[in-house]
């Protein structure tokens, strides 16, 4: 409900160091466009989500969050085209420059033949939700996104799983050159693929390929720590067994939690006992034919995610309950 008062008063919008007046009857998007601020937009009625922005300090008006995922709402994202401010607002645009914090490498060791476990420690607590990602930046400015694999309650540190990519400048640098004690710049956390402690009896389906396990491990640890009581299924897929990791740790968790199920999947020809043979997509769909009411997390290869997003939806998961983190490979 919009009150008559809020529509007739002028509020200020602050973006970085600039302040703009949102005229009565204007939406935030109207003001930004009138002021020639570069912002992407299309439908102007809350359908396309192109003009999503973030409120830095206050809760945005409820109506401006219509249709967003719960995880986006939690971080005060809103649609500029639907927002009639009810008070002064500080707004962050999606492409606004980020704040970086220096961290120190405290662990770098291999998890398998091509995946590095990297742990970066900070002086102060680093606030994030398990499953989000950050940008890591080298001193020459080269930047790549990596998912966080741990939960915030553990320590003032972030854990990453870095797969060595052929000719990947950043991953090769992390694998071959970085040493314990080196510092590295880390951005603020981003992304909406994380666990919220609600509907704890809901089934959770976690599907990952390769280092897609990183965000899923964080989400899993978080869900278990928050006492999620519904069934939790983790499917981790790769071609060869040498490219999976954390297998023993996951099996230990299965022993400790009755509701947790772990299904490592191998699509290659050699499949040892205890592993499922086939593409992870096919194994998931054959194992869980009805996903009505389930919450789904898909992380890793973009093709896997695209297909599974549609399939898990057809099998009954609500579109608002499907969270994804596609790993796009930056060339070079």
């Amino acid at each position, binding site marked *: 409900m919009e009150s008559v008062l809020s529509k007739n008063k002028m509020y200020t919008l602050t973006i970085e160091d600039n302040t703009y007046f949102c005229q009565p009857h204007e939406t935030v998007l109207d003001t930004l466009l009138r002021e020639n601020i570069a912002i992407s937009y299309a*439908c102007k*009625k809350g*359908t*396309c*989500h192109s003009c999503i922005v973030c409120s830095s300090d206050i809760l945005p008006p409820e109506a401006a969050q*219509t*249709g967003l995922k719960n995880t986006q709402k939690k971080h005060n994202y809103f649609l500029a085209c639907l927002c009639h401010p009810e008070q002064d607002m500080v707004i962050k645009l999606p492409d606004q420059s980020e704040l970086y914090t220096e961290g120190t490498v405290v662990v770098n060791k291999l998890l398998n033949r091509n995946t590095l476990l990297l742990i970066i420690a900070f002086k102060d607590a680093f606030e994030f939700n398990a499953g989000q990602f950050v940008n890591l930046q080298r001193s020459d400015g080269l930047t790549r996104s990596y998912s966080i694999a741990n939960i915030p309650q553990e320590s003032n540190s972030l854990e990453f799983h870095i797969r060595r990519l052929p000719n990947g400048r950043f991953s090769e640098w992390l694998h071959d050159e970085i040493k314990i004690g080196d510092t590295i710049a880390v951005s603020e956390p981003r992304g909406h693929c994380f666990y919220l402690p609600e509907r704890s009896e809901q089934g959770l389906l976690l599907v990952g390929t390769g280092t897609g396990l990183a965000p899923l491990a964080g989400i899993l640890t978080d869900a278990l720590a928050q006492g999620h009581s519904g069934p939790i299924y983790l499917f981790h897929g790769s071609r060869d067994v040498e490219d999976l990791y954390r297998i023993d740790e996951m099996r230990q968790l299965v022993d400790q939690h009755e509701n947790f199920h772990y299904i490592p999947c191998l699509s290659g020809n050699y499949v040892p006992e205890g592993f499922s043979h086939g593409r992870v997509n096919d194994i998931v769909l054959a194992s869980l034919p009805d996903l009505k009411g389930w919450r789904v997390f898909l992380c890793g290869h973009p093709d896997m995610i*695209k297909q599974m*997003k*549609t399939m898990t*939806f*057809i099998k*009954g998961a*609500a*579109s608002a309950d499907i969270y994804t983190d596609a790993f796009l490979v930056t060339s070079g």
Partner: protein
Amino acid sequence: MTDTQDNAEKSLYERIGAEPAVNAAVDIFYRKVLSDHRINRFFDNVDMEKQAAKQKAFLTMAFGGPHNYTGEDMRKGHAHLVKMGLDDSHFDAVVENLGATLEELNVPQELIAEVVAICETTRNDVLGR
């Protein structure tokens, strides 16, 4: 959305339940469409999330709600599908899925008939005729 309207002649969009009705229908409808072998090949290469937003806009229009589609938009938006062979049978299948969705949501038959009539007004534009 739920503001009381005093005028006796409520629009179809209001009688059907406005935006909450669209939200209730969109997943059910889109799931039916993606599961329908007569038409799901037309959706093979689309991103589900973006498509779901479009389906919401389509349902809003079909329910007689606010929209800014023109006949020309309909033609342009479906031209690549017409090239793939989109014809009356596919159009009918989509309308059928929409009708089944509304029945599932216990929308009265006379309102469903009005929705179908609105869809019909777009047939020639969608099929590029």
